[in-house]
């Protein structure tokens, strides 16, 4: 008795090791109890109140219209296929939004730090305006602006190729012809050659000290090969939107970004880029001023100082919150439902009128979770690659 309550001469209630173990065990029991209670309760409710649940509906015809889709869709397609179409719409908005918002955010963030007073003020006003107005309001704003545009017949035309009107934004698009695959393969070969040349010339520049212009050479090779391929294989049929004959003046050919999607993309990009700009600014400012001074006192000019000293350090600060903005953008794209873009939430909400809601919402949650985890994974991999000794 004595030895169990007093191991090593310390009473149990004062023994740090025992206390830590006890807390772990007690909290594990509590968590398991709550979670299993919840699951049992839900299962019972579903059974007792005959709430539909299950996934057998996925094979049935969805019978709902989806306004636009990346892949071909008919209402007679199955629920699972409809769900995939909606998920692809969300992914399309997310990926395009992430890329555009990153580019815009970096430009604005760097402008914010510019010594040019006017530029830095414009960036400040942009940031403070767009990150402080709720996104839903902004989406409605852009959507209403597009709705108020002139109709197809009277809308704006740029360079006889781009059309902006209340049914969306029309732009030239290329569709593949017979020579597409040979051209694609040649272009990929050109890209590989360009990367190879870039690596070779970078290495040469470092080994010999002679300026070897690896970036210029890489781009030149890739662009040259691609253009030569275009001339040889004529792989793409570039279709410019054209006005049809007739009273409505409809546009045909090319690609169309619907008003909903266009408004969603602008809203997400403008809103998120304001946050990204702040992250970029903070990241650059987080690098100690002494680093710039050291670079300058070694004779590195501004560009070289930014490239070799400031950016590598700033990126480490920027990447984690940047990834978190990507997640936000992806999740925020669910507000698309408010302006009629058939994203995952909008489409599945329609589906729940017939299909079991709990199952669908569960699938939606898992899909968003998967997308978010994917972005996180990419960010974590980047962080691991760029980690250096002695710090974090």
């Amino acid at each position, binding site marked *: 008795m004595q030895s169990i309550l007093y191991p090593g001469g310390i009473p149990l209630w004062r023994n740090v090791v025992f206390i830590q173990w006890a807390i772990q065990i007690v909290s594990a029991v509590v968590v398991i109890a709550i979670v299993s209670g919840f699951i049992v309760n839900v299962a019972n409710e579903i059974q007792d109140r005959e709430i539909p649940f299950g996934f057998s509906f996925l094979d049935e015809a969805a019978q709902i219209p989806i306004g636009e889709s990346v892949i071909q869709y008919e209402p007679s397609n199955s629920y699972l296929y409809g769900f995939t179409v909606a998920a692809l719409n969300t992914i399309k908005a997310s990926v395009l939004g992430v890329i555009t918002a990153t580019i815009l955010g970096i430009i604005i963030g760097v402008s914010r730090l510019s010594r040019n007073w006017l530029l830095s003020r414009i960036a400040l006003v942009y940031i403070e305006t767009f990150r402080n107005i709720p996104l839903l309001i902004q989406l409605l704003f852009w959507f209403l602006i597009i709705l108020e545009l002139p109709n197809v017949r009277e809308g704006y035309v740029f360079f006889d190729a781009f059309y902006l009107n209340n049914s969306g934004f029309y732009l030239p698009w290329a569709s593949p012809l017979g020579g597409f695959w040979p051209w694609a393969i040649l272009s990929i070969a050109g890209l590989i050659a360009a990367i190879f040349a870039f690596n070779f010339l970078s290495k040469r520049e*470092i*080994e*010999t*000290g*002679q*300026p070897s212009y690896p970036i210029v050479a890489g781009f030149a090779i890739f662009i040259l090969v691609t253009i030569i391929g275009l001339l040889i294989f004529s792989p793409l049929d570039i279709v410019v939107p054209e006005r049809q004959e007739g009273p409505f003046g409809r546009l045909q050919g090319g690609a169309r970004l619907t008003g909903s999607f266009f408004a969603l993309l602008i809203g997400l990009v403008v809103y998120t880029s304001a946050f990204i700009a702040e992250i970029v600014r903070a990241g650059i400012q987080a690098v*100690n001023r*002494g*680093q710039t*001074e*050291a670079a*300058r*006192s*070694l*004779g*590195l*000019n501004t560009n*070289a100082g930014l490239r*070799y*000293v400031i950016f*590598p*350090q700033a990126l*480490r600060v920027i990447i984690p919150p940047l990834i978190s903005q990507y997640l936000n953008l992806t999740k925020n794209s669910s507000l698309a439902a408010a302006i009629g873009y058939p994203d995952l939430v909008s489409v599945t909400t329609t589906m729940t009128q017939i299909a079991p809601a709990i199952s669908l919402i569960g699938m939606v949650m898992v899909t968003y979770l998967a997308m978010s985890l994917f972005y996180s994974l990419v960010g974590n991999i980047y962080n691991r690659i*760029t980690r*250096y*000794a*002695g*710090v974090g």
Partner: protein
Amino acid sequence: MTTSLEETTVTNPDIRNIPLEDRDDIIVCENVFKWFGNFCAVNDVTMSVKRGEVVVIFGPSGSGKSTFIRMINRLEEHQQGKIVVDGIEMTNDLRNLDAIRSEVGMVFQQFNLFPHLSVLGNITLAPQRVRHLPKAEAEDLAMSLLERVGIPEQAEKYPAELSGGQQQRVAIARALAMQPEIMLFDEPTSALDPEMIKEVLDVMRELADTGMTMLCVTHEMGFAREVADRMAMFDEGQLVELGTPDQIFNNPTEDRTKLFLNQIL
């Protein structure tokens, strides 16, 4: 291809045998002013430094001594007066500024090593990117400099893995790798633990012996007495007194110098 120490650093010990008055001026400052807002940080400073001379600059905090040496390589801009470094006048001409910066090395109180680069990377960055030295040559140069400051075995480590004294010695090697004519030291030992001060001062002493022109802002009066050719006392932005260590320590003419030396010695 190996590079010997003589080639890699400006070593001109013979110049120490030429009397100061027979050497040419490498730095000339005439009536230099600098304001931060309404505060006059450097107030009408006129002084020149001879080639191969070691000048220790001291004085109370906020006296403008750091600002003054930071103007020698244009980390701070002077707003009035004239600064000429090795025959090149400091103007807004970018070409002059780049020429001066690569001739003047600087060592900071907080080391300012690049944390994302190894010790070797820190030292080879500027020679490779500014002087376009081949990698192998730059690395040979870096290794010979690391040997000179006594830590060749740390070449592959990162700054955060080194002690303060070691970091400062890497910083000195990094500045020397650009083969400067002039070295500026801005309180190089102030951020160091006492036991590490000596290792840094030893490197600086050795550097002075090679004939390097050095401007050191420091409170290490033992170092000043032993190494400095002249000492400059700054107070409230003004150059109060300039003289040999002997004059400054034994016969200071200005009351402010006497007062300050009494406080710190």
